[in-house]
């Protein structure tokens, strides 16, 4: 498959610092080669959406970025440092700068919303001042519009609310990079749109650099500064949503065929 390069990088981010630099990334599970040759640069403040069919390794890429998986080859630098070469302490510090929103929200189900939000503040940032902790909790809950859910358990929340609280818990440590793993999967179209708009507004508020893994074209349209399309372990096309929409490449057209 010949790569379609609609744009090398969006015009608005060409002068910005490269936050994530991936070159020739490879990852296999047993005999299955999931990532074959991934190349990507993400600039500060940019929202990059990764589209691809299920089982193509989209989530594997972001798991490599946070050091949950170790790549088999290639280079993956975050803030200029090679992730694979980091020791446990360096990895911990890197993770403090990265927010990772899981597909399920991954809320701690034995804790209330308040305890979920307190957890990263007291365990990661080691905050002790009750007033500051409460202020931060109120700030993020207000941001996601769920201030009244503070004493509820995750089991009392709907899927969309759980995603919002998951986003709030991720943003509460004020990360510089946000990684979203299929943030709208399993939600109805209206809630999906709300979550997508929330991602965009939070990105503007906290000025984060984001990678969003999704199948949801509406989410991609709302959130993306740049879209990359993954197929067979490689990124085969990249560009803005509009330019890829007009692409004549057969695989790219498949993704956009239901978009008017």
């Amino acid at each position, binding site marked *: 498959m010949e790569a379609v390069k609609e744009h090398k990088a969006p015009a608005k981010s060409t002068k910005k610092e490269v936050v994530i630099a991936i070159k020739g990334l490879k990852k*296999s*599970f*047993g005999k299955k080669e999931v990532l074959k040759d991934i190349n990507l640069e993400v600039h500060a403040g940019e929202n990059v959406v990764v589209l691809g069919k299920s089982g193509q390794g989209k989530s594997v890429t972001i798991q490599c970025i*946070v*050091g*949950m*998986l170790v790549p088999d080859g290639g280079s993956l630098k975050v803030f200029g440092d090679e992730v694979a070469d980091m020791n446990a302490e360096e990895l*911990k*510090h890197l*993770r*403090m700068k*990265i*927010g*990772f929103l*899981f*597909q*399920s929200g*991954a*809320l*701690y*189900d034995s804790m209330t919303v308040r305890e979920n939000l307190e*957890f*990263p503040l007291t*365990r*990661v940032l*080691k905050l002790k001042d009750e007033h500051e902790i409460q202020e931060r909790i109120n700030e993020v809950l207000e941001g996601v519009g769920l201030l009244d859910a503070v004493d509820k358990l995750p089991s009392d929340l709907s899927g969309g609310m759980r995603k919002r609280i998951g986003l709030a*818990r*991720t943003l509460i*440590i004020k990360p510089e990079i946000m990684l979203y793993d299929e943030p709208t999967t399993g939600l109805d179209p209206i809630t999906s749109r709300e979550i997508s708009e929330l991602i965009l507004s939070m990105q503007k508020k906290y000025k984060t650099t984001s990678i969003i893994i999704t199948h949801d074209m509406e989410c991609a349209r709302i959130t993306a500064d740049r879209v990359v399309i993954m197929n067979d372990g490689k990124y085969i096309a990249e560009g803005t949503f509009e330019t890829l929409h007009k692409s004549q490449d057969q695989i790219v057209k498949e993704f956009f065929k239901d978009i008017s």
Partner: protein
Amino acid sequence: MAAVQEQELTGWRKWFAGIGDQCVFFTSFLRNIFTGGFEWSEFVRQCYEIGYRSMMLVGITSFIMGAVLILQLRPSLVSFGEESMLPTTLSVSLIREIGPVITALICSGKIASSIGAELGSMKVTEQIDAMEVSGANPLQYLVVTRILAVTCMVPLLTIIGDVIGLIGGFIALNITDSISYVLYFHKCVAAIDFSDFLPAFVKTIFFGFAIGFVGCYKGYNSNKGTESVGIAANSAVVTASLWVFVIDAIAVQITSILFYK
């Protein structure tokens, strides 16, 4: 970071990989006791969940065990004209062996399975991954607190179980015979000395550690999939129960060498 099973191992290689994984898990546990902040509030919560919530089950089982032992022992001792030895026999057998082992087996069934299922389901729902990628230390919060809580609670539950077992024996004895509680408990306590109580108490600490460790290891390293939760819980019970017997066998050898030469 939990080991990611990236390739399928089989046979002996899988077994050795498992041993290696457990050694790594054990050293991580030891390291995390002394580094970073200790999670006191979670430790106390776990002591309550593990200790207090198991007390009723341990109590009922021990009560029945004490009563049944008296009823079973009585005909044999009566035939030798030694029914006055019933409190002594019950006390020694309960405190040396039956109390610790029965309590540990109950805890294997109740505690190891619940820890295995809880951590397994946290793994499946990516809660442990979420802790890890946020920069928090899930070993410190989830594993260290649970293992130490079980290690502290099993000896206490055993002591409570022993006392309730003796009460059960007293009530059973008074169904057929008549003995005052002062005389009964005097005979029970007089029969026990340091060499009976101390080895039994020390081995319950090891029972507790084994139950906590196995439950946490199985749950924390379960695969991602709903059936893994059941597998983790089931294998935690089986492995912890097996370890109870292995530790008991080792403990009796050491006790024999040290105390009963």
